[in-house]
């Protein structure tokens, strides 16, 4: 079977391709790293009874997973990759926003200081025309 893949594209960043490595344990489980219950409910004493069902093994002697179970495990890993990528992007966006806000704040403070100093120096607060 062909392996699933995903592509993320956006105006802001280069296109990102997500692929499955079938030999990596990350793509062999239905219990994803990022798709579990939230920490909040676990801290509140939640017992996780809503886990995804385990992948199903074929009835024959091969011991292989069924087609749909294989797909589910592959997609679980792929979903983790996407979630981690998007979380990183959100962190980057957050840092950028904080930086911008800080810069705007400094610029505003500087402008207010300049205006006050100008008034103290006897100006009328209006910008002079050339």
């Amino acid at each position, binding site marked *: 079977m062909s392996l699933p893949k995903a592509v993320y594209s956006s105006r802001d960043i280069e296109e990102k391709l997500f692929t499955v490595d079938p030999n990596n344990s990350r793509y062999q489980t239905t219990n994803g790293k990022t*798709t579990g*219950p*939230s920490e*909040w*409910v676990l801290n*509140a004493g939640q017992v996780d009874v*809503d*886990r*995804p*069902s385990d992948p199903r093994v074929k009835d024959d002697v091969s011991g292989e997973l069924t087609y749909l179970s294989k797909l589910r495990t592959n997609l679980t890993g792929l979903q983790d990759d996407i979630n981690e990528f998007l979380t990183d992007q959100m962190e980057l966006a957050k840092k950028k926003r904080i930086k911008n806000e800080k810069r705007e704040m400094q610029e505003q403070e500087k402008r207010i200081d300049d205006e006050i100093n100008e008034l103290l120096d006897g100006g009328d607060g209006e910008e002079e025309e050339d």
Partner: protein
Amino acid sequence: MVNLNAVPPKNGRDYYIAIGLEGSANKLGVGIIKHPLLNKHDDGDYSHDCQVEILSNIRDTYVTPPGEGFLPRDTARHHRNWCVRLIKKALEEAKIIHPTLDIDVICFTKGPGMGAPLHSVVIAARTCSLLWNVPLVGVNHCVGHIEMGREITKAKNPVVLYVSGGNTQVIAYSEKRYRIFGETLDIAIGNCLDRFARTLKIPNEPSPGYNIEQLAKQCSNKENLVELPYTVKGMDLSMSGILAYIDSLAKDLFKENKKNKILFDKESGEQKVTVEDLCYSLQENLFAMLVEITERAMAHVNSDQVLIVGGVGCNVRLQEMMAQMCIDRSNSKVHATDSRFCIDNGVMIAQAGLLQYRMNDVVKDLSETVVTQKFRTDEVFVDWRE
């Protein structure tokens, strides 16, 4: 003229079969129903009498620890991880072996509700539609409640009181729409009860509202209600202030704040009010407000039937109070259903969805299946009624 037989059943059968998927809040429901093809449905207003047969009605609730509500992310995860298992179980119970051949339509909740859980369920609906090659119908959750209530109780044209964890509305049908006559201005009644249950730290199983009802039954001081704000605003009502007030009383009770003269005797400091008294007073106060606006809506539309739907509609005390009003009013009748149909379920989505399907209202393109958190009851064109 309404012709409910406009779309014939699949494969020349004399009945329709629909599967409904519901997951707008913390309940995940899958229901399968059957409508016989009846001649009387060729022409006439019989959408309340489809002679529905319920083939399966499976539900699983996402339950959180006492004191906690349900978060969208974890609720969506619950639905995602249980949806396939529930669909399989529902098909098995309905004895449907070949969904492609046997199912006429797949109905899903389009809104209103919590975005993430709605999204989980619609993905399952789309997948089944593509897998089985069966058309989809998006259903308004509130209309689902109304149509199920009408079918079960056979109430032809009632004033509907829709009371649940996310909605509080008084509705009446007029000219192809379910018109909202009155509604909450802030939180829903079920939300008010659930959040008070969280303050009391009582279990969320089977449901917080049910546990409040049981505590209220144990109230031994029913003659002396704790005075609470009564906030009917015309045809609307407001409940957030009542919740804030009763929450503060409960907190004072737990802290044994003897300065609170409502809870403790001025002279002796003896406790006058119990948790059970608070539950009873809260229910009486809120339900009295609902009865008032419902009665006014009945007067507006000159109706003698009330249908109570939604999760809070299971509350026996609310049904009693509404029945009393109806008797006092003109010997009219209150209709209500039990928890199988009151509480969110897949069958109600199948019922409303099948009515839509029979009027040839189906999804033409998957882009029409995008779910929405805001979807008012009166946005739906009700072409299956006169």
